[in-house]
């Protein structure tokens, strides 16, 4: 029983932090630009494939530094892609209705799908975890893969870094000012358009980083985007749109829902997850840490 509990706890945290890694870029872009980027999962997926391509050179013996390096390459690559996507797509979405944003970013997601199918094909691909993260820790009946510990650690580090930047630096204060009142931010001399560009790049880089860090967490297929984007959207919505802390709390909450569901309702995948999201939105439409009135 304690083994079960520990397994649930551990699986919950692994799911949570993996999902948070994907959701972090999504929620930042929404929080600052108020653009809900449906294609985020697509760029996460391309990030994973980029890391796969890098790590392919190492075969089955991937040193940890190479694994982290692959994630970094994926982050930089997606950041560069972000520059282009911002110029071509996002900049046009600033003052249009949400439905156009949805259509435009959904179209981008399809472009990502097509790109992945063209470049990497339809087959399932996989990357093994790096050296040192291939085994598991045994605690009672529970088996805790060290790679999952790595994923949990990555999620925590990214969360703490983002929290630190957003709440304790002048960059963070600038972002908060822009998120609340972009006009006034301009009136005090801030080049808000430049900050928007940087935010999109950061959001895309986070998607790429998540793809690279999680590349060994599951097999790679063109379906990857859709799996993660639903999870990440759940987390962003439940956490309160645009809140990093909310996304973090919500990812842990939904992680537990997922883990309980996987253990006790294995034949009904996703049912408890979506039921919980619906229930939370009925009780707190603004999300767990969202504000009553959005700015």
């Amino acid at each position, binding site marked *: 029983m304690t083994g079960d509990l520990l397994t649930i706890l551990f699986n919950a945290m692994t799911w949570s932090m993996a999902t948070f890694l994907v959701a972090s870029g999504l929620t930042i872009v929404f929080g600052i630009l108020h653009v809900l980027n449906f294609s985020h999962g697509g760029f996460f997926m391309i990030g994973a494939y980029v890391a796969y391509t890098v790590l392919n050179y190492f075969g089955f013996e991937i040193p940890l530094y190479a694994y982290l390096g692959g994630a970094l390459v994926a982050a930089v690559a997606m950041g560069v892609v972000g520059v282009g996507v911002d110029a071509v797509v996002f900049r046009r979405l600033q003052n249009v209705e949400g439905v156009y944003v949805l259509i435009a970013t959904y179209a981008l997601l399809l472009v990502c799908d097509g790109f992945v199918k063209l470049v990497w094909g339809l087959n399932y691909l996989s990357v093994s975890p790096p050296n040192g993260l291939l085994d598991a820790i045994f605690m009672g009946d529970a088996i805790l893969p060290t790679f999952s510990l790595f994923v949990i650690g990555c999620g925590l580090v990214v969360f703490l870094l983002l929290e630190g930047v957003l709440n304790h630096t002048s960059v963070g204060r600038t972002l*908060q000012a822009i998120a609340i*009142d972009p006009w006034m931010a301009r*009136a*005090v*001399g801030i080049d808000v358009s430049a900050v928007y560009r940087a935010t999109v790049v950061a959001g895309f880089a986070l998607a790429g980083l998540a793809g690279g860090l999680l590349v060994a967490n599951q097999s790679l297929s063109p379906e990857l985007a859709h799996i993660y984007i639903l999870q990440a959207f759940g987390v962003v919505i439940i956490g309160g749109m645009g809140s990093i802390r909310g996304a973090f709390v919500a990812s842990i909450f939904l992680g537990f829902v997922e883990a309980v569901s996987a253990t006790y309702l294995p034949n009904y995948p996703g049912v408890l997850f979506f039921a919980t999201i619906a229930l939370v939105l009925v009780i707190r439409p603004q999300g767990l840490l969202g504000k009553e009135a959005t700015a």
Partner: protein
Amino acid sequence: MLEVAKLDAFYGQSHILRGIDFQVAAGESVALLGRNGAGKSTFLKALLNGGPQARGRISFLGQHLTREQLHQRARLGMALVPEDRRIFPKLTVEENIEIGGRAAPTGATPHSINDVVAMLPMCGPLLKRLGFQLSGGQQQMVAIARGIVSRPRLLMLDEPAEGLAPVIVDELADAINRLRQTEGLSLIVTEQNIDFARETTDRLYLLDVGEVVFSGSWPEFDARPDLVDRYLAL
């Protein structure tokens, strides 16, 4: 230092300002009076390129302003204290003031927080408070502090006395007059409150439905009591 000639401003199809001529000399303080909807805020926003489409000539410190965006005009030394104050609610007062320093031109250092508090002592005890925890008068003082921290050359106050208790209005007038002297600021004060405008400015323009209907000194204005009835009485 500010010269505006034949300024027209539009919001979409609505023609809000028509042929405005307007000057402010260095160190001068000028009032812009008019009823709600006369176009006072639109005028300030048009100067800053902060919303309305503007046509006409605006020159500031000898430079013709054409395509400069809002943030660029702010960095040229035009500071606006907007009508609704727009204090950033989730930042502290200190952070709100600090962020105003972003408007300092490249190479120039903004005032320190201590300097600003020395100029506007009401802000002193508020520094650690969050923006949304301020009363209307406190918001106004903080908005002015945020406006002057970057050492602007022109400070534009949009209906600063609106909604404030008479005691606070007096304090505000004193603070503004002190700032004029210590900072050598030029000022534009838009108001419906004639007494407040009189206390803080040297002369005035009167705006009605987007057109300047009077400009002159306060004694000249007082010699025409019909102006108040026609253009300012509710």
